[in-house]
């Protein structure tokens, strides 16, 4: 009896004081995206993308504008860093900011140029933030611009960009972690870059229910950071795959090249024609879904160099060229042409990275470190100055396994084509 009473008295105070960490869902403002812009030295503008509870309840999957209300809200505040701005933002919000779902972080271009060192600490430190966070640079814009844009397919632009990135053949949901790992390797980093895209063709609304193309968010490519973690430049969407392929992260891409003539020796116009973009012509498109990259360091009189072998497996998805694909020899021609084109393209992008950005975003230094650690000890200190002049021997080898569900085109006659 005594014991029971004592136990009861011991338990009672626990019940009376309530639960310390209770946080009702109705009292939380769920942050889906977070953006940082630099206003001037030491002053940041933070933007939060919040779930609108009422709109998302009725809106469901459709999102966008529901009954004149968009499915999200953006709020912003100035501050000295992430947390300071968050506190300043809180005074405008009736609910507690809950960053547990903050999976997407936007960085304005100006801040990226100034250097991201000052703001990246919190994302690794805060226990509320998941390590699966995505991080983006907004090219030619501010994070706030990008985040306040209504995105039609999703309720929320912050969710949209994550999905876009996932669909574009890049590694899923780990750009922040990869950035930390890269910055600790040879010292530079890479982040996906977004851009605000106005519609290619302007069409007016003709009736109330029309849905003409609108200004939207899109993936631009990648933003490259130098060893000071400052923005060095961008790779556009058609250069981004080169980096992904070389670092063995590419999961799918579609390549289109020009094949004009049907000479047995020459599979098409010169690579330069196709690459310059000035020559338009008849095209072949290949869908490649398996990628492999082998980088081997080679040494020539102590000077490091690399042999880069890129392999891919895919099939022909579209053929507007005169080639008749039911003949096996012609597939080889497409292969040869495609390899030539891709090789040129890869070389061009690699050269651009070496000369313009001088940042080792392909992890070549890490490869040297990993496979030739003793040589690396001598090279490590000067790697930043060595990298732009490193010799690279690049070969691309595609293996085309099919031509879709037809060999020959379903259309009978093609201009200049053989039978």
């Amino acid at each position, binding site marked *: 009896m005594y014991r029971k009473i004592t136990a009861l008295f011991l338990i009672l105070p*626990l019940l009376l004081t309530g639960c*310390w*960490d209770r946080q009702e869902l109705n009292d939380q403002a769920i942050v889906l995206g977070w953006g940082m812009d630099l206003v001037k030295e030491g002053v940041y503008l933070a933007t939060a993308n919040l779930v609108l509870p009422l709109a998302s309840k009725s809106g469901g999957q459709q999102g966008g504008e529901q009954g004149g209300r968009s499915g999200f809200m953006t709020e912003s505040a100035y501050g000295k860093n992430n947390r300071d701005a968050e506190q300043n933002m809180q005074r405008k919000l009736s609910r507690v900011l809950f960053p547990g779902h903050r999976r997407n972080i936007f960085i304005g271009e100006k801040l990226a140029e100034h250097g991201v060192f000052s703001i990246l600490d919190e994302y690794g430190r805060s*226990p509320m933030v*998941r*390590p*699966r966070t995505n991080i983006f640079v907004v090219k030619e814009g501010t994070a706030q611009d990008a985040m306040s844009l209504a995105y039609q397919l999703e309720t929320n632009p912050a969710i949209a960009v994550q999905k876009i990135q996932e669909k574009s053949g890049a590694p*899923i*949901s*780990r750009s922040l*972690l990869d950035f*930390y*790992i890269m910055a*600790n*390797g040879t010292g530079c980093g890479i982040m996906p870059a977004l851009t605000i895209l106005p519609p290619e063709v302007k069409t007016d609304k003709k009736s109330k229910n029309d849905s003409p193309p609108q200004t939207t968010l899109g993936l631009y490519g990648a933003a490259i950071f130098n060893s000071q973690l400052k923005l060095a430049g961008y790779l556009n969407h058609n250069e981004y795959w080169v980096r992904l392929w070389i670092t063995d992260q590419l999961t799918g891409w579609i390549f289109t090249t020009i094949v004009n003539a049907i000479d047995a020796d020459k599979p098409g116009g010169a690579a330069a024609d196709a690459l310059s973009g000035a020559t338009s012509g008849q095209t072949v498109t290949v869908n490649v879904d398996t990628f492999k990259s082998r980088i081997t360091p080679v040494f020539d009189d102590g000077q490091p160099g690399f042999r880069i072998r890129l392999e891919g497996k895919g099939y022909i998805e579209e053929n507007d060229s005169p080639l008749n694909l039911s003949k096996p020899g012609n597939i080889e021609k497409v292969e040869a042409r495609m390899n030539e084109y891709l090789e040129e393209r890869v070389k061009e992008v690699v050269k651009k990275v070496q000369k313009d950005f001088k940042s080792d975003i392909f992890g070549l230094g*890490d*490869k040297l*470190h*990993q*496979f030739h*650690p*003793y040589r*690396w000890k001598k090279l490590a200190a000067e790697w930043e100055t060595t990298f732009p002049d490193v010799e690279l021997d690049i070969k691309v080898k595609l293996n085309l396994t099919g031509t879709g569900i037809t060999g020959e085109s379903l259309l009978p006659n093609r201009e200049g084509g053989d039978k």
Partner: protein
Amino acid sequence: MKISNRQLFWMILMMEIGINLLISMTATIRNARQDAWISYIAAGAAGLIITYAAARLSSRYPQQTLIQYSTAILGKWGGKLIVIPFILQWFWVMSLILRDEYLFIRLSVLYKTPDWVVIGTMIGVVLYTVYHGGIEAIGRVSELWGPILMVILALTFGLTFNNLNWTMLLPVYADTGLGVIAEGALAPVSLLGEAVLLMMLFPFVEHPGKETRKAVLLGVGLSSFLLLFGVLWVIMTFGPAVGGRMQFPFFEMVKLVYLMEFIQNMDIFVMAVWLVCIFVKLSIYMFITCYGVAQWIGKTRSWKKLTWAVAPVTFILTMLVIKLNPPSGLLLKAVWVRYVLPVNMIGIPLLLLVVSSVRRKHRQKI
């Protein structure tokens, strides 16, 4: 109060894995970088040797605990004096584990709950178990939860497999060297070596003997094997630089689980099982502290009454540690590796082993 060999095996396993996964990895990776896994292999071997020595010693006195046979070996005063470091260590360990548990829980789940609630509830549960069930209850809990822990760990390794990048393990050896790798091994050894507390558990086993020694060694062996996997996974996920800077890299790794959209946020399972590990470890320590102190003051029969003293003292000590807040890494290095490992885990057992061998030979001569 008897436990079976199998229960002892699970007890040792859970005790070794819980805290090791949480705190030893960062220290090791910081020292030995991508070669931390070599450190873990070395640590596993050293842990086995330490455990073997302790088990060897205990099996000479299968019906006695350390407190009893130390007086048998060194005489009344010598025996009583030499176990004082152990008693100090037990109190110390309990308060440190509780502190680490509190810090981790506060960081991950309960941000605002006051420290005394988190610690008090844990001590309460442990006290209840030890008081009512003694070593038997602890043995059964470990037997029940040990296999679940194995399943959760296997799932964790399996589900994070797609994040691994094996080239992060390169270059092997070239960057570090023997000294650094050995230094890195010290932290896990100092925790694996805690298996020496089997010297207190030995007489509670049903048939103490060769099988018991096997069970304990298997427990230490399997836990160092799992820890080796853990550290390999962490290095291949985060790389040595990021892994060595995170406070709890293993748990960060679990947070990365992301498969087919719906398999994610596994961390809550791992955390739950991890808490059970901590509970088992604390209960074992609480039990041997109560029992050991009772034997030390010569009142073995009333060991249960001592729980009412040990639990509050632990509580106060823990609160003190929280108030003083010494960094875990520093404690691991400055106290654990420098004093506890050489004195309690190697020095004293070895001394007792040598003296008892000499005595035995001496006796045989007469």
